[in-house]
């Protein structure tokens, strides 16, 4: 090879290397704090500010992990844990109460790399169900553990169980009383947040996708009722080959439509964009079946989609292109 040619090649190689250096792989995270009939009329400015602060804390906790090179799995775990600990959301402390007055918690997370997954349902004494779901994924050969068996596993893993009273807040006790009076086992929230399932999806620097979802389910629900959140494919799904999705809404409809997986299947097999896939599932398929709710999703290029067919969905998105927003209703308020 002649000298000028070699030089030209070298220059080209350096140009490519520097182009790669200035354009690192995209990072993205999206979170939700539930969808449902959140009557905007009942949303006082103080309340709205408080929800926004809660969402921002979860969003930034997750994003900080991505920014320092952490995994999407760690990011979604941290974001969901933050909302589980925040009593205004329907997960962990402050979860809605079942007919007997207890919080019964479900959670799942999925690592798009593998893919692998872990989930728990019907637990009543685990402070952070998403962490137990993660232990199921990482320390057991199983995917789903339920009720007492899941708590036995928690103890074996050295988790400290908490009394049921830890989860109960005054607001949720009041909601249950109201629901019992009307015997409305429903989505029509007596107060904002009653269907406030929480979730997160993320893309990390290594190109891995992850999704996590956690919930207390429905106010006044039948003991033992499990919704879509801990069901891999329904409320939670992630695959590095397609996308990561977390859902919130009327869980029974999400299970029957296999909503989270369907979004990824449409993306992968029908070659729809993420926004199109989410729109088709939420506004066509789910709506046609009578189901209400929304999903957040992120694909391998870092595109984020957040869509819902309910009045509102508490949500937030942040990415490495500088986007950072929190919204509650349709017009991004």
């Amino acid at each position, binding site marked *: 090879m002649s000298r000028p040619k070699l030089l030209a090649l070298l220059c080209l190689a350096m140009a490519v290397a520097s182009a790669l250096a200035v354009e690192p792989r995209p990072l993205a995270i999206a979170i939700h704090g539930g969808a449902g009939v959140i009557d905007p009329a009942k949303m006082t400015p103080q309340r709205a500010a408080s929800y926004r602060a809660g969402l921002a804390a979860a969003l930034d906790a997750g994003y900080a992990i991505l920014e320092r090179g952490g995994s999407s799995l760690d990011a979604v775990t941290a974001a969901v844990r933050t909302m589980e600990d925040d009593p205004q959301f329907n997960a962990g402390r402050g979860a809605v109460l079942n007919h007997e007055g207890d919080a*019964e918690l479900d959670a799942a997370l*999925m690592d798009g790399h*593998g*893919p*692998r*997954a872990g989930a728990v*349902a*019907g637990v009543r004494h685990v402070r952070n169900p998403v962490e137990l779901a993660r232990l199921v994924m990482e320390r*057991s*050969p*199983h*995917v*789903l*553990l*339920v*009720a*007492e*068996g*899941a708590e*036995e*596993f928690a103890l074996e893993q050295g988790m400290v169980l908490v009394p049921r009273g830890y989860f109960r807040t005054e607001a949720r006790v009041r909601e249950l009383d109201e629901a019992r009076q009307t015997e409305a*086992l429903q989505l029509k929230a007596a107060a904002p947040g009653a269907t406030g399932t929480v979730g997160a999806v993320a893309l990390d620097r290594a190109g891995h996708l992850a999704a996590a979802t956690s919930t207390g389910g429905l106010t006044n*629900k*039948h*003991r*033992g*009722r*499990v*919704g879509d959140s801990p*069901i*891999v*494919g*329904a409320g939670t*799904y992630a695959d590095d080959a397609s996308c990561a999705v977390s859902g919130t809404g009327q*869980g*029974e409809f999400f*299970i*029957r*439509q*296999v909503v989270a*997986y*369907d979004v990824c*299947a*449409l993306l992968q*097999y*029908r070659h729809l964009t993420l926004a199109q896939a989410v729109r088709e599932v939420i506004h066509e398929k789910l709506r046609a*079946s009578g189901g209400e709710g929304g999903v957040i999703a992120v694909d391998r290029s870092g595109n984020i989609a957040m869509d819902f067919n309910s009045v509102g969905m508490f949500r937030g998105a942040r990415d490495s292109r500088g986007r950072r927003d929190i919204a509650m209703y349709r017009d991004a308020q």
Partner: protein
Amino acid sequence: MHSKPSGSANRYAIAIHGGAGAVPRAMLSEQREQRYRAGLEAALDGGFALLERGGSSLDAVSAAVRILEDDPSFNAGHGAALTRDGAAELDAAIMDGRQLRAGAVASVRHVRNPIELARRVMEKSRHVLLVGAGAEEFALEENFALVPNRYFRTVERQEQLECEQRGQRVSDLVPSSQGTVGAVALDGDGNLAAATSTGGMTNKRPGRVGDSPIIGAGTYAKNGVCAVSATGHGEYFIRAVAAHHVCAAVEYRGLDLQQAVHEMLHEILAALGGDGGLIAVGRDGQIVMDFSTEGMFRGARDSGGRREIAIY
């Protein structure tokens, strides 16, 4: 593996499975094999008789699965595999392809026919999945008579459990760790349905739930597409969203049902490291039964005159 060539549409059809796994031919005595075949025949014909009289696919899969649940040879209902604590913990699901209605129960210990409770969840509750004590509370509210857990336990399952706990590999001589039962059917009105019931893995951790009661993983039905029931290493089937994936491959990519089932078992699940089997029936009554294990207890019958029972 055993499918009718597409084009020869059947008005109605049913397929059943009694589990997939390592079934060493040499270890399966003639007498035993006869027992399994008789059990499969009873379930197959029980379901088919309903279709023949113009009954619904939903009734046909319920009936077939209930017969297998009552037969102690199979790992569901009476004769289910036992947990590490020596108890039976049962999971089941049913799905009606007509309106994508579904019902499921997991981790119940005192319900004689979990498939009937799953159906009741679908028809009488606003929910899809109920688990543990809450599911049994619902059973009582619906006037089910609960049975003691010992109803489910058989000497064979206890021996299997002891074997496993001593660290000896349990042969699937009695279909054990993977002996889930299931049925799929198409009725004369074009409605598809699927049902699956299981005791799960021998020596499983209490509270462990596999793919059987997970809509989309072990059980799925959608009119105009297909109905699927799975058996095998449940954790892999959950991650792969196996049953729904087969339907999505048919619906979105236009794959033939046989290709879709083959891809799931021999490419996707094989790559993940999981084995098992799937039975499926398509909108035209095409039956597909395939597995990546040594054998799968299975049967198929359709309005075109096909009737077969097979193990290997």
